[in-house]
Structure formats: structure tokens, C-alpha cells
């Protein structure tokens, strides 16, 4: 239990749904953290760091009040490029997303509405690639 997954979305209902899914799949092995905006997320990341908990995946919404997902991705990648960033967005266009994946700004993209299996698969993939 020294590894964590962080989910960030301004919509609490999205977070609640995500929480149930993540809890079911990763609740036993990972610390699950949730935040509703980028500032809060950064705070959580710093707390985890000071608690010596290793953050491996961030699932983040793209457009949020205040700072957007890109700011978070930038922060995280600067902190540790190994942390995987999965964008869960209802808006980000595919072309833009692919470009960002190519430039390693983010690691993968999941569109809203998402399928649980797909999302879990992506997260598992991210965890595996992180361990590689």
C-alpha cells in the first residue's frame, strides 16, 4: 500500500462513479486519492510525496474551473515523467490528444462516457508500463 492512484474531476458525480470502479479493482492494493481541481490535486500529490507514497497514475479531467488538465499534466511530468497521466475528457479532440500522447505530455486518453473495462485496462496498462 505504498503506491497511489489519483483521480481529478470537477464533477463530484464523476468522481463518485470512478471511486466505486477504482475501489473495486485497485482498492485493496493502492491508495486511492480524489481531487476536484488542479490545485487540490497538486496538494494531494505533495502530501503523497511527503508520505513517501509513490504516485503511479493520475486520471484527470481536461477542462476544469481554474487550471486545466494540461497544467496538471505539465506539473506531474516535471515532477516525475514516470507518473502516467490518463486524461478522462468529454471534449478533447482525438487529433489533439494523439499529438499530446506523441509529445509525451500525457500517456493516454479516455473519452467520456467511458467504459469501465476500457478505463481499468488503460490504468492497468499504465501501471504495468510504469513497472517496466
Amino acid at each position: 500500500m505504498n503506491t497511489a492512484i489519483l483521480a481529478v474531476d470537477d464533477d463530484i458525480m464523476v468522481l463518485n462513479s470512478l471511486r466505486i470502479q477504482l475501489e473495486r479493482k485497485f482498492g485493496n492494493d493502492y491508495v486511492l486519492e480524489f481531487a476536484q481541481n488542479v490545485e487540490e490535486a497538486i496538494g494531494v500529490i505533495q502530501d503523497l510525496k511527503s508520505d513517501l507514497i509513490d504516485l503511479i497514475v493520475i486520471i484527470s479531467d481536461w477542462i476544469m474551473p481554474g487550471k486545466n488538465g494540461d497544467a496538471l499534466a505539465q506539473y506531474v511530468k516535471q515532477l516525475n515523467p514516470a507518473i502516467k497521466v490518463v486524461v478522462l475528457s468529454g471534449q478533447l479532440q482525438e487529433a489533439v490528444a494523439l499529438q499530446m500522447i506523441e509529445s509525451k505530455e500525457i500517456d493516454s486518453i479516455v473519452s467520456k462516457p467511458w467504459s469501465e473495462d476500457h478505463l481499468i485496462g488503460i490504468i492497468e496498462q499504465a501501471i504495468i508500463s510504469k513497472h517496466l
Partner: protein
Amino acid sequence: MRLRSSIFTQVWLPYSIIIVLLIGILAFYYPNKQRQILSEYKRNEINQLASTLSNSVELSLAKDDFGSLQSTMQMVSKTDQLSVVGLLLIDGNNKTVSEVVIPDTVNYNQVIADTLRYLTSEKSFSVNGVNGRVFISISKAKMNADVSNINRPIFLFLTLIAAVIMILVYFLANMISNPITRVQEFAESLSKGNYNVKIAKDYYQAKELDQLQISLYILAETLDFQRNENEKLTHGLEEELKIRSEKLLQAMDELNKLSLVAKKTSNAVIITDQDKKIQWVNQSAEDLTGYSLEELIGKTPGIFQSPKSNQAEIARIGHLLRLKEPVWAELLNQAKDGREYWVSLNIVPMKNDFGEHTGFLAVETDVTERKNLELQREVYVKQLEESRAEINAINAGLEQMVEEKTKHISSLALFPEQNPNPVFELQLDESMVRYFNPAAGATFGDLTTISLQAFCQILQLDLLNIQVNERVEFEYNGLVFERNIFLLENGKVLRGYLHNITLRKQNEKELSKLIDQLRTAEQDLTVKTVELERSLEELKIAQSEIISKERLSTLGMLIAGIAHEINTPLGSIKASGENMKHLFNDGIMTLIANMKMEDLKLSIQLYQQTQMLHLSTSEEREYLQRMMERLAMIDDVAMKRRFARSLVQMGILTPNPEVISVISQPNAQEILQLSLNFVLIQRSINTTTASSEQGSKVVKALNSFAHGNLNAQKSHFNLRENIETVLTIMWNKIKQGSHVVNNIPDDVNCFGLPDEMSQVWTNLVNNALQAANNKCNISFEYHQIQGNHVIEISNNGPQIPEDIIDKIFEPFFTTKARGEGTGLGLNIVRKIIEKQGGTISCLSDTHLTKFTVTLPIKFEE
């Protein structure tokens, strides 16, 4: 004092001067006269003395008594006035023998010669042969002294009298001037309003002045009394005056209006006094008559009459005016330049307030045109009648002519040789041309040489189907003929008359060509009109399409954001659905199947303590932290964390002993998990409901926005809701760093085009967000000003540059990159608002950009 000095200078002084002058003249003239009288008198006296002396000398000589002579001479010389007495004795040679002169200081010759100094009388005598001469001389100086001696008292007397008169006059002047001066001063005081001045009585002694004074007293008292009366009256008069002046002002006002009307009217207005002398005319009258006001003043309106004017009408007008009756008439007048014009004139006698007749007011309208038309009509009617008579005559002539022509034609029929048109006869039973006249020969050649069939072909005549009395046209050699055929001799003979109508046909052809052209032109015009109408219709459609497209373009820009707004709740719903399935199958059914009944009971009891909380993630973290502390009795950190998280998720923030006891159970994990799963299912259901609502809200907003029907009927709509819809659609954009405050009250209802208005708000908000790179504060404020809804949409984004702020509402004006905007947004915004009778304006500075939209509360198209 003024009066007194003027009396002295004007009366006393000249009078004194005259007296002094008179005395002067007397003093000059009187002594001379006296001297003359005296010298005459002395001359006579000394002449007499000389005679006496001469006689005395003669006597003395005769007696030879010289002694007495001597004494006589002495006596004479001592006579007062005589200066010199002398006696001369002369011999025959006229030589002085003896000379006695008293006094002896002078001699005879000196005295005789000095006529200036002496007045001398001389007598000759002759006694006893002794000739002699006596003379007596008086000194003129002495004589003058005598005269002076006589005159002095006279002058003294005169001077005395003059002085007395002057003094008298002085006093008299004083006596007169003093009272007058007093009266004058008194009058001056009175005139200054000082009615209480009194005249001191002791100034005057004269009875008359006393009376004058008394009269003045009475006058002063009367004046004082009247003054008081006047004061009383004045108050009344002032009131009266006020009322009158107000009335006067009203009257003047009315008069001004009237005079304005009189001045401005296109009718001529003429005002005369009671003697019909013109006092005033307006500009129109000057224009009409050609005379200026200056020329007309004092003249009578007779000046306007033309020699052709109807004299009976003028007499009638004059008669009515003498009776002071209003007059209406129509007259022919003559202008200054000789131009004749008809006027319809209306004369009204004018009366002042006392009912006295003061003059006449004439209003004249130029009816020349109408009158001319009337006259013209009369002329036309006359001409028409004449024409009718003429036509009748012509008809009669025509009838006669027709008769003659008929006769002529029948004669032509009888004598076809002379007919200028072709005439022929066909012998049908023998199939030959029986006859043709010279005109036919000239046209068709020798008809005997061609066959009947050939000729019939020319004539377009079908012998098997002969239609008589039918005019048929045919062409031959470029000429057009009209044929008329008759059957004679029981159908054996056909007679034909041909009429050359080439020229008529040509004219007809040209006419029909023209008509065709006209018709074509008309058709073209119709076609073009239709085309134009269609273009206009297309343009209208295009315009509405542009507006729709602009709406769609705005929508397109927003669509990504809207997708997010829909996808987000959709994501929650989908996830919740999947979650519920797992939770129900694995989380509940599987768990229950493997649980003991006691544990199940505990789990349900625990579930009953749960509550649905809406915590933010940060709150949750805080409660989780606290819960971890509360669960200190659990050693396993992972389990502690899990339990804490489950409890917080269930909304059990302060675990009671019952809960603690559950946690202490060996199967606590399953018991907690089951309760939690119940909660999570409930939460998923809630999430599904809430997300559906959120999604449908967005879809509804999108629907009302995108569905916008341009030809929609106006309807009532709630302003706040209308704006909220837009904010919902744009929420995804707004939330990226902007803040919108909607201060529109809940109860503002508008009547207009709600769909189009949402386009307006979208545009304004979208522009603000774009200009500020999605980071600004936007506020909607509402006021009600003078029957208008006033909505102010402000943002603190960048200033709209001053050089373009005037153009932002113009079509195709855009600051955005090519393809990003249509440049029609704000233009359409303005059109939409103006369509509803409203206005839009914009103010922008470095702090604030404010769009002000007004919409009439009562909107009527």
C-alpha cells in the same frame, strides 16, 4: 430764487438801463438846445443893448457929453453878461480916431476876429459928422457856464427821479417775485409729492397775495384729499390694470398667433380701415398683387381691379361693405405687372371691443387656375357644341357624298372601264375570262392569254367552293388585293372586284410589328419583374439563412464545450450503471450468500445509521484523517484505512459504540462492505438521476438555442431563465477561469423573441470570453427605465480599441482570424434587438466594457 433773479435780470435791469440811456440822451441833447436858445436870446439882448448904446452914444455926442458916454459904457459893461464893450470913432477914411474898450485888455480887432470865443453885436452911428461904431461882445465860455449853471439842477432832478423809479421797480419786482417764488417752491414741493408744505403768512402783506396764498392752501388741501382718494383708487386700479393687462396679453398672444397665421398663410390677407384704405397686407398679398406693402398703404383695394373686372360684382361688394356685411365673391384682378388673376375673396368687417367698426379684413385666394380651367371648360363645351354642329353638317355632307359615291360606284359598275381597280368577269361554264377592265390588264397582263385555272390560282379562288360576298385577301407581284366576288346570270358568270390594299397592309404590318415589339417588351418586363421578385425572395431567404448560419457558427464554436457538458453526466450515468451491476451481483448477492444471518443483521443495522452526505474531496480527506485517529484501536494500518474510508463513505462521521462494536467483529470487513455497497448503490442511483437531470438541462438549453426559429411568434419569456439557458450551454467555457454574475431579478418577464435573445446573450458572452482568453468577470444587471427593460452586460476584459468601437455592429466586421468568425455576430445581435424595437450600445474603457441592451416593455410591431 431762480424766479427772482430772472425777474431782476429780465425786468429790473433792462428797465434801469433804459432810464439811464434816457437821462444820457437828455444830458447830451438838452444843454445844446439850451445853449442855442440862450445864444439867440443873448444875441437879441446884445443887439438891443448895442442899439441902446449906439443911441446913447449919438445922444452923448450930440450933446458933446463924453463923460456920460463913458459912464454909459461903464454901465453897459458892468451889465452882468457882457464881457467887452467898445466905442470906436472913425474918420472919413474909415480910420479909427479913437478907441475905447472896456476892459482894455483886449482891442476891437481881437474881439471881432475871435468869433469862437465871443458873441459880438456891432452898431454904426453918425452924429455931427462924426462916424463911430459901438460893439458889445459876450464871452461864450461865460455863457456856457451860465447854461451849465441852469442845467445842473435839472439833471440832478432827473437823476433823482430815475433813482426813485429804480428803487420803486426793485421793490415792486421783489414784491411780485417773492410770492411767485414761494408759489413756485410750493408747487415744486407739491410736484415732488410733499403735500404737507405750508406757506409762511408773514411774507406777504398784499391782500391779493393773501388771497393767492389762501387759494394755494385750499389747493394744497384739495390735492392732499385727492391724493388720498387717488391712493384708494390706485389700489383698485392696479388690480383692474393687472386683470386688464393679462387680458391684453392674452389678446396680444391671440393677435400674435393670428398675425402669424395672417403672415404665413398662402392666402393673401389685406386689412383696411373703415374708409377702405389699406393698412396692412401680408407677404402672400404682396406676391399675389405684385405691389409692395409700402406701395399699398393708404390705397384702396380698387387698385387691384382690372378693366375686365365684373363691374356688377364690384358694385355688389361695395353695397355689402357699406352695410358692414361680410362678403364672399370671385373677382378678376390685375397685378402690378398687368398679369390678370382670379381671386376668391372673403371680406369681413372688423369691430373693436366697443363694437365700433374699425375696418375690413379681406382674405383672398388665388383661384386663377381653377377659374381658367372653368373658362377653358366653357370654351371646350362651346367648341364641342360647334364641333357637334360641324359633325352634323359633315354627316349630312357625308350622307350626300355617300349617296353620290354610291351613284358613282354603281356608275363604275356600269362603266368598269373607268374603274381604277381591277374588275373582271369569268364565264364559269366556258372556263374562260369573259371580261377584264384596263386596270386588271395593267395589273395581270392580257388575261385572255392565261387559263382560268391559272388566274384563279392568282386570285386564290376555289371554283368548286365559291364564297360570294366574302372579302378575301391575296398577294400578287408584291401587291396585296382584296377581292370581292359576285355571281351573275344564275351562277354562270363570276364578277370580281379587286381592291389594292398594299399600302394599308403595309401600315397594318408595321403596326402589328410595333405591337409585337411592345408585347415582347412587356413580357420581358414581366419576366424580369418575376425574376427580381424571386431574387428578392431568395435574398430574404439568404438573409435569414445567414442569420441561421451565424447562429450555427456560434453553436459550432460552442459545440465542443457542449459535448463535454453532455458527456460528463453521460459518463457518470454509464459508470453508475456498470457500478450498480457489479455492486448488486458481486457486492451484495455474493456477499449475502456467504454471510451469516447475525452478520447480515448487523450490516443492516449499520446501514440504517448511514446518511447521504455530499462531501467535497478535501472535506472527505479531513474526515478520513479524523476517522483514522478514532480507529486507533485497529493496529493494521491498511485495514484501519479501509474501515475509515468505508465509514466516511457511509456518512458515519462519528462512530457510536454500536459501530465500534461492529468493527470489532471478526467479520467486520464483510459487514461494513455490505452496508457500504448498499450506500454505493443508493449513491449510484442518485448519481444517475442527478446526471440525467444535468444532461437533460444541457440538451434542453441546446434545443431551445439551436432550434431557434427565425419566423417564431413573439412570446412571453422570463429574462433570467433565458440568460441562464445560455450560461448553461456556455458553462464549460465559462468555468475555465471566468466568473459570471447573473443579477437579473427572477420576475422580469419580456415579450419578444426568446430564441433570438439567447443568441444575443451567447454572442455577447462568447465575445467577452474570447477577447479575455476565457478569463474575465461578466455581470448581467437589470434596470427599468422609462418603459424599457435595460440589461447591462459588463466584463472586465480588454478594452475595445476606440478606433473600432464604432464599427463593431457593422456587418462583416471582425477582429478574429479568418474562418474563426463570420463577422456578422454583433450585426445580427443588433438586428435581433432592433426587430423587437430595442437598442444596443457599447462603451469600453480599460476597466470595463459594457453593452447596454434596451427592450421595450410593451413591444408592438
